[in-house]
């Protein structure tokens, strides 16, 4: 019992501390999460992709524009089971940006044509206000692919 109580207390304390450290809602930044899909010739690392996205934003909008867009790659996962059977790879990911810079980031993503010599094309599946919503979008694409794969195998 004692143990449990002690645990609760510490947890409570931790929660209070966390809330004190968090920004108040009025000061929080408004963000958008872009769910995107990528097709490429070969597999691409998360690091390579991030470098290429950053390069593209810097070359299109410069340092000030890049700082305003607040771009961050949340997650990127490769999909090994590419459909069609050719040497093509697919991946899906989520990118965070400021809520008023969505079109700019979209243009920067569209300007990427290759990463370390591998040709690629990026398509934005959808935009969401939460990571949960964006991951739901990527999940639909993953399931879709799986269906295609299954029907082809049959």
């Amino acid at each position: 019992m004692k143990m449990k109580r002690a645990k609760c207390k510490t947890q409570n304390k931790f929660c209070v501390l966390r809330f004190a450290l968090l920004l108040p809602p009025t000061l929080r930044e408004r963000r958008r999460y872009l769910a995107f899909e990528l097709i490429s010739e070969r597999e691409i690392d998360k690091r390579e992709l991030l470098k290429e996205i950053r390069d593209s934003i810097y070359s299109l909008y410069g340092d000030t524009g890049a700082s305003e867009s607040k771009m961050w790659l949340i997650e990127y996962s490769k999909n090994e089971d590419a459909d069609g059977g050719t040497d093509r790879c697919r991946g899906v990911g989520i990118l965070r940006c400021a809520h008023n810079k969505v079109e700019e980031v979209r243009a920067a993503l569209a300007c990427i044509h290759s990463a370390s010599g591998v040709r690629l094309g990026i398509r934005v599946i959808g935009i969401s206000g939460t990571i949960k919503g964006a991951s739901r979008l990527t999940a639909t694409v993953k399931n879709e692919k799986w269906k295609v794969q299954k029907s082809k195998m049959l």
Partner: protein
Amino acid sequence: MPTFKFFDLNVHAYPETEVPVEELIRVARRYGYAGIAITSYDEVVKGKEGVQLPPSVANFAFRGIEIRAKSVSELKRRIRLYYGKVPLIVVRGGSKELNEAALKNPMVDVFAPPYGEHEKVGLTHVLVRYAAENDVAIEFNLNAIIHSRRSDRARILGKMREILKFVRKYKAMPVITSNARSIYDLRAPREMVALASLFGMQKEEAVHALSDIPEGILEKKWKKRREVEII
């Protein structure tokens, strides 16, 4: 929100690149296009009617010819050769005389200024006016933006901005195309709209240039009237 039918009027497939038509069509369908036009170079097809498309994709993929002539007489001869055989005739611009000949010709559907190359794009306000009179659409090639960097891109964007100004003034028809040579060059319609905003195109304008205008060109909506008049 109304749903639009998006078209990409300048895509290059198998004879001049290594990508088969089916691959391009599959990716374009996935990206949400209602149709693409496979434009082959006339030097490659040599008087034939371009790529043979399977009948299953007849209302998705359209045949087209991209003419790259060196002289005015050659251009005229080639346009006459393909006119009526192919649904879409695209002329790649070059010198000022060549551009003038192409834009004064109502048989031409789309005029593609040479953005990517280093030579001067000889497209003045007078020529854009001819384009508006003869219903020749003017292409904005987004592949040139995607595949260039720094000073090259700045030059291309500047040129596009200038041409857009003329197009707005004389109410010529702008068309946004990807000029894709592989499936990795294709971009989804929303991305194309975002790219078009880089050279100052409004969202509504860009959507119009991707949906209604290409559809009208393929149907020869504006040309028909002219043909009746001539007959």
